[in-house]
């Protein structure tokens, strides 16, 4: 009782001393990502490095009165492993925010733990729109992109170019289904027709059978609702079996590392939607060059998005001088996001960070003048149009505030 009284007295005198309210005067950021599996190139060590860069820059520029620490771990794309790690980090290691989380299943698992412990989750790598719809909560921000945004950009552009009839080759798990569903919606909304879909086991190596089905469907466009090596092998084998160029392919989720790995000869003339490209302007080039010096490759949107998310978070912590989850979240939502990565960005109440997206056209080998010169920007999709509108949101937080 006595000690409690003293503690209360000390606590009461704290504001007078103007001490930071950041718990034990340190902010701890946990980067949980795929360090060794199928997504380790487009996220992985590069995402950890981007987070480190954000912390270094924040310390150098803002000179905070608290320490910033980073921990990272490999979630191996497993949901159970991710939620265990999240618990360990939140409970034992006093981590304030867990970030990155490529692969939807791991993101959904960590979001739940974060909600339970009242800590933050900043998602960059995961794709499914479930994160800000059915499974949304008030401690999560979905930063970089989602299946709606990429489908919206690419599918719309392809339909408008005359690709009216579609057939999907879909990875048979939550992400693939989500991508197929969102893309079909966009195709139909723009006057296109979906002739059918085939679901392939994940991960796959041989796509020839599925391509043959797509070929016999007679569709003008074959939509690839998969990612990573699955998409790459589909594209490569489509050329081998003469599917392309008679029918065209639409890679619904592709990253610059995929283009780099496949080469321009195979990927030329494809459309894809990105949240970021290193060669957009002086600002993106300057940051990407710094990144390149460290990683020896150009950043994907997931990696660039990591920097943006971590910076925004740290600035919010400094502004409210606290690492209290709700206070920081309120500050983050209040502040617009404008940096080298995000243009016209803001965080909506469903946790979606909306920002400008870009419809890209992959260059022909002859048009590529220097290393990593892969895209022409066809169209900037404004933040307000790029993401799923709130009017059709399935997120309980939105429906509550609307009614």
């Amino acid at each position, binding site marked *: 009782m006595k000690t409690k009284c003293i503690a209360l007295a000390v606590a009461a005198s704290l504001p007078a001393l103007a001490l930071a309210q950041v718990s034990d005067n340190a902010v701890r950021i946990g980067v949980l990502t795929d360090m*060794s*599996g*199928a*997504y*380790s*190139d*487009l996220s992985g060590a590069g995402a950890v490095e981007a987070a480190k860069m954000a912390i270094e820059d924040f310390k150098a520029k803002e000179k905070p009165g608290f320490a910033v620490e980073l921990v990272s771990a490999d979630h191996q794309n497993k949901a159970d492993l991710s939620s265990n790690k999240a618990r360990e980090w939140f409970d034992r290691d006093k981590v304030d925010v867990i970030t990155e989380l490529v692969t939807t299943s791991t993101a959904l698992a960590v979001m739940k733990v974060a909600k339970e412990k009242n800590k933050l989750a900043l998602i960059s790598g995961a794709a499914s729109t479930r994160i800000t719809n059915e499974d949304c909560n008030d401690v999560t921000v979905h930063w970089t992109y989602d299946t709606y945004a990429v489908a919206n950009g690419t599918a719309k552009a392809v339909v408008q170019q005359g690709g009216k009839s579609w057939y999907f080759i879909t990875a*048979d798990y939550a992400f693939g289904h989500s991508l197929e569903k969102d893309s079909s919606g966009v195709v139909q909304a723009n006057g296109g027709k979906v002739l059918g879909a*085939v*679901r*392939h*086991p994940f*991960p*796959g*190596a*041989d796509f*020839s*059978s*599925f391509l*043959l*089905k797509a070929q*016999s469907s007679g569709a003008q466009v074959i939509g690839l609702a998969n990612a*990573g*090596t699955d998409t*790459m*092998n589909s594209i*490569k*084998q489509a050329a*081998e*079996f*003469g599917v392309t160029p008679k029918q065209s392919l639409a890679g619904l989720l592709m990253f610059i*590392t*995929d283009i*780099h*790995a*496949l*080469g321009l000869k*195979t990927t030329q003339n494809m459309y894809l939607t990105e949240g970021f490209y290193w060669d957009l302007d002086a600002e993106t080039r300057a940051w990407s060059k710094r990144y390149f010096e460290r990683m020896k490759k150009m950043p994907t949107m997931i990696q660039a998005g990591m920097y943006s998310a971590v910076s925004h978070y740290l600035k919010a912590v400094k502004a409210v001088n606290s690492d209290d989850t709700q206070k920081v979240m309120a500050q983050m939502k209040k502040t617009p996001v404008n940096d080298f990565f995000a243009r016209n960005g803001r965080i909506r109440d469903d946790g979606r960070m909306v920002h400008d997206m870009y419809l890209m056209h992959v260059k022909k080998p002859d048009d590529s003048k220097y290393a990593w010169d892969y895209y022409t920007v066809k169209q900037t999709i404004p933040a307000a149009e790029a993401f799923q509108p709130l009017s059709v949101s399935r997120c309980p937080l939105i429906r509550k505030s609307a009614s």
Partner: protein
Amino acid sequence: MTDFFGIPLPALFGQLVLGLVNGCFYAVLSLGLAVIFGMLNIINFAHGALYMVGAMLAWMILEYLGLGYWWSLLLAPLAVGLVGIAIERLLLRRLYQLDHLYGLLLTFGLALMIEGLFRDLYGVAGLPYAIPDELSGAIGLGFMFLPKYRAWVIFASLAVCLGTWYLIEKTRLGAYLRAATENPKLTQAFGINVPLLVMLTYGFGVGLAGLAGVLAAPTSQVGALMGSNLIITVFAVVVIGGMGSILGSVLTGLGLGLVEGLTKVVYPEASATVVFIIMAGVLMVRPAGLFGREK
């Protein structure tokens, strides 16, 4: 058979041909495993990793030495074979008097290390390897366009399988090998260098994995994880065929490729699982596998 109603025959034939192509990869890989198991009693978990090394070597030979596909087809399996010989001499040899499990654990550890090394060096997105000019293009079969390269895969794999079968079943060297498998002590007493035979067998077995890797390189992205995705299925093939049975592993490999092709017509979602369902069924009825003998 009513399942096939509504599926046009050309599409069915097309899928069967593609199944045969995949079956060829299964056959060459499981053949190597069967040869190694038959001779060394080692369950070679490093097989998938060495298959990947074969493909990576093909890429390296082109990238660093500027030599094309046909050179790779010769050099990469040889190099993988030499790696295998080194593994056998330095590591596996020490485990023969122990339980099977130790060989399995050692080769599994090796597989993780080899894959980790290549992942660290080249990432997982994979590297592109083009189809050689002589084999690009397609052959019209009436019901489908079969890329020439896939036809070549079928031809090359069947030739390799047949050659291996002939070598082991019909030649003097093969007779020594079979004798050494049956009774190593007695064979040694006849003045045959059994340890040398064992070493060469392992080198040959993993060389086959390397060859399959080179054959696969132009058909998919060449990357560190390509072996680990395939090897589990190949183990199922070996188990179904009967551990150590040469002809069994080849026939099962081809057969299961066809079954997988059919599954892709009827219910594609199950195409990755069907091999394991068959495995479970076969093990219940014939625990030694379709072509295996009870020991």
